[in-house]
């Protein structure tokens, strides 16, 4: 299931909905991405320099849903999943706010974990979202990270 929304989501409720009433799920892996308050100079490791006041996520309505659905379908082709979920927010968010939730349920834990990792890696490089940071030094579009490309490429040879 795919959702693109401005509102926050309730992680516990969303995860419970994937497994409640089912007895065929052995593992549920999830990832929540949150807004951090520090900028990373050059995309390297954070120096704890707190300077992000807010973050605005822009996206491409229509293509976003289409890409997320394609990515989710690809995960289900690669791993035997019982359920999966991607929720991605857009609009203005504050440090500590949730941005994205990815979750995969499977009979076997490794399938759930691998699929969840795949979903977030591919989402990061294929879903049309862009982050605008509001920092003390002004607004700044977040640059794509080479490390994200490398993490996504891991899944190409599968």
């Amino acid at each position, binding site marked *: 299931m795919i959702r693109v929304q401005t509102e926050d989501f309730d992680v516990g409720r969303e995860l419970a909905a994937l497994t409640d009433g089912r007895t065929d799920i052995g593992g549920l892996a999830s990832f929540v*991405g949150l807004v951090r308050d520090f900028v990373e100079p050059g995309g390297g490791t954070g120096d704890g320099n707190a300077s992000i006041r807010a973050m605005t996520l*822009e996206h*491409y309505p229509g*293509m976003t849903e289409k890409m997320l659905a394609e990515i989710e379908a690809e995960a289900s082709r690669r791993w035997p999943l019982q359920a999966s979920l991607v929720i991605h927010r857009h609009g203005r968010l504050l440090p500590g706010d949730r941005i994205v939730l990815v979750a995969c349920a499977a009979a076997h834990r490794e399938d759930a974990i691998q699929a969840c990792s795949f979903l977030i890696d591919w989402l990061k490089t294929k879903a*049309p979202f*862009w982050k*605008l940071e509001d920092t003390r030094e002004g607004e700044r*579009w977040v640059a*794509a990270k080479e490390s994200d490309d490398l993490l996504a490429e891991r899944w190409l040879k599968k």
Partner: protein
Amino acid sequence: MKVLYFAWLRQRVGVGEETVNPPADVATAGQLLDWLAAKSAGHAEALKNRSLVRIAINQEFAGLDAPVKTGDEIALFPPVTGG
């Protein structure tokens, strides 16, 4: 043909969406970018560094050689940074 711009491409072009009617010899995404870059200083600035421009045709990623035609929805944007 509808062209959409996102993130800093949108800011540099000055609009998020425009309808364009390129001449018949604009047959690929790359040729469209060349033609758009000549429209204004903002367009030129947005499209200056082609390595930072990603293209979607009808909501699918496409390369510079991909054909474009009347009625297509072309989107131009920087590398994505969601998640």
